[in-house]
């Protein structure tokens, strides 16, 4: 079974022609509007975090700007009440879309007491979420892929109806772990979706120095799994692609590799300066692929969004982020003493930290 489905550009979001928008099953104008609202919030929060870093308040940040449509679409195509999400540092939008509050997000970046994912032991977006099964154990690129296969294998063994989404980047695709994970997933048909957000760069390394092929999705054929390549700036196509993958997983057909083509609109992290390695026109060109205006125009074109609502969303987002900033900036850091516990299970007879 090696279907390669390709959703090619130009896709609905990009065509300016007044054509009718055919929404795939499960996608309603209301859901699209809600997704766009989260995209606005994510963008506002993202910009704020970058500022907090420049003010010396946030040690490090990776931006999701450019990836927003791909991430809201992915979450919409899954069921947060039963599915599982192995993210990496760039899933700010997905984490918001899964119900994390701006305050909870900022607490990660400012490493404040009570931070929900890791107690501020780890970088932002690392640790485990208390309300949804979203987690990221480490910054080591690619390690989540075999882990996601193991998570999905456990669900398959236990007959639980859960799908595991494993986010990764184009750079992570080069790791041996990526090969080993997809090979095993193909053999045992585990219910996992390998969700690649291909933004053409791994820090400064461009795609052509990362791999000698055009399509990551096409590698699915090496593992007997399905591969889908989709425009990740097009929320509708992206939703359709992930839904197909999730349906395959739920129906026992096994794994799917979904490649979302997106752009990384900002440098790799706040420590990076992409003018060192990206040409001016490359930087210019990518601005046309900003999913926010693309989605905004698409929704307006199809009468789902009007000016007033749009302005309302952006105002709402700004206020939410402002309030969260004030709130979090005044929070204390975690007490020093807490760092000593939780290395191993505290067993009767006292803890053994090894």
């Amino acid at each position, binding site marked *: 079974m090696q279907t390669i489905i390709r959703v090619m550009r130009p896709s609905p979001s990009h065509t300016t022609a007044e054509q009718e928008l055919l929404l795939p099953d499960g996608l309603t104008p209301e859901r699209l509007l809600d997704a766009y609202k989260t995209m606005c919030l994510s963008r506002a929060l993202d910009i704020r975090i970058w500022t907090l870093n420049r003010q010396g308040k946030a040690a490090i940040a990776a931006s999701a700007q450019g990836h927003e449509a791909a991430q809201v679409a992915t979450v919409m195509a899954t069921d947060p009440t039963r599915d599982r999400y192995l993210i990496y540092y760039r899933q700010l939008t997905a984490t918001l879309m899964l119900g994390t509050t701006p305050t909870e997000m900022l607490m990660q970046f400012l490493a404040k007491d009570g931070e929900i994912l890791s107690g501020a032991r780890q970088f932002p977006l690392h640790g*485990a979420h208390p309300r949804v099964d979203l987690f990221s*154990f*480490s910054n080591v690129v690619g390690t989540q892929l*075999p882990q996601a296969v*193991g998570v999905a294998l456990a669900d398959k063994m236990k007959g639980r109806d859960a799908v595991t989404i494993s986010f990764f980047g184009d750079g992570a695709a080069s790791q*041996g772990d990526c090969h080993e994970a997809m090979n095993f997933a193909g053999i045992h048909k585990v219910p996992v979706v390998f969700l690649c957000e291909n933004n053409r760069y791994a820090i400064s390394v461009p795609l052509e120095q990362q791999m000698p092929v055009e399509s990551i999705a096409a590698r699915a054929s090496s593992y007997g799994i399905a591969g889908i390549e989709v425009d990740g700036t097009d929320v509708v196509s992206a939703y359709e692609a992930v839904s197909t993958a999730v349906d395959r997983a739920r129906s026992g057909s096994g794994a799917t590799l979904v490649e979302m083509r997106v752009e990384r609109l900002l440098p790799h992290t706040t420590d990076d300066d992409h003018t060192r390695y990206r040409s001016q026109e490359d930087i210019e060109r990518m601005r046309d692929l900003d999913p926010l205006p693309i989605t905004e125009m698409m929704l307006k074109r199809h009468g789902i969004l009007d000016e007033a609502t749009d302005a309302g969303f952006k105002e709402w987002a700004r206020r939410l982020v402002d309030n969260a900033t004030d709130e979090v900036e005044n929070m204390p850091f975690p007490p020093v003493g807490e760092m000593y516990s939780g290395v191993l299970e505290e067993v009767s007879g006292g803890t053994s930290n090894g």
Partner: protein
Amino acid sequence: MAEMTLIEAVRETLRGEMRRDPDIFMMGEDIGPRGGVFLASEGFVEEFGAERVMNTPLAESSIIGIALGAAVNGMRPVAEIQFADFVWPAINQLVGEAARVRYGTNGGKIAPMTVRVPYGGGVRGGLYHSQSIEVLFAHTPGLQVIAPATPWDARGLLRSAIRSNDPTVFLEHKRTYRLVRGEAPDEEYTEPIGKADVKRAGKDISLIAYGLMLHYSLQAAEIVSQSDGIETEVVDLRTLRPIDSETILDSVSRTGRALIVQEDTGAVSVSSEVSAIIASEGFFDLDAPVMRVTPPEIPPMPFSPLQEAEYMPSPDKIAAAIRRLAEV
């Protein structure tokens, strides 16, 4: 009481745990119909099925990474690395990831997994079927590392490892698999992780060892007892992380002399840590330098028989070291 070899103790413990808890499953290369290259799972696939006794592709990093994923999602995987020499591709998932899951998620996720690793030399294994690989694991916070020497301890400690809620590396010395026989009853008993065990009492010298070297050390203790009347107390470390300082220091406080015997090369090793513990916390009890018997600083270990024999610490070499230390 049941007399069995160490490999039988491992197999029977695995069988019993698999029967007890349906969340336990085993994964590794050739553990299915082949029963594992050391037959630790002989007959298992017939009893438990191919899903719970899972043959994996030849890819150690994914064996541990997938076991870790299953562990954080409610299973209790027991992964087998076929030979210790092949654990290196899995270090990233084991030391980089599994060890830090509980701490890095602030308890949000835990990794109850056991990684069985047949290790050690004296089996004509050459450079790539003889290695001891405990150092990095014994150094890593978040891991538990067990190295039993007897069927009794193998059984009691493997039970504890599988039932523990933290990632545990379980080191089985290949040479001891069929060499060592002993009592290991079917009764439900466990041995505590993190506790050393005095395998021979003595008043003159404290000898600390683990794995195959525990047995060579006991033989050496007998030799010097007969030949020189030196009474050596032999402490079996059993757990390499955490190391049981208490038992070690208690013994040294009574003998005033410490000798550590180790099959792995000595520089920056478990034997270094045992020395360091004694030199800091047991210093005022010491009547002589803390000595070590370790192999030469060469890659373990040559394939040719005479060189392999020269590499391995032997009862005679250990006996000689005991005599030297007794005379200081």
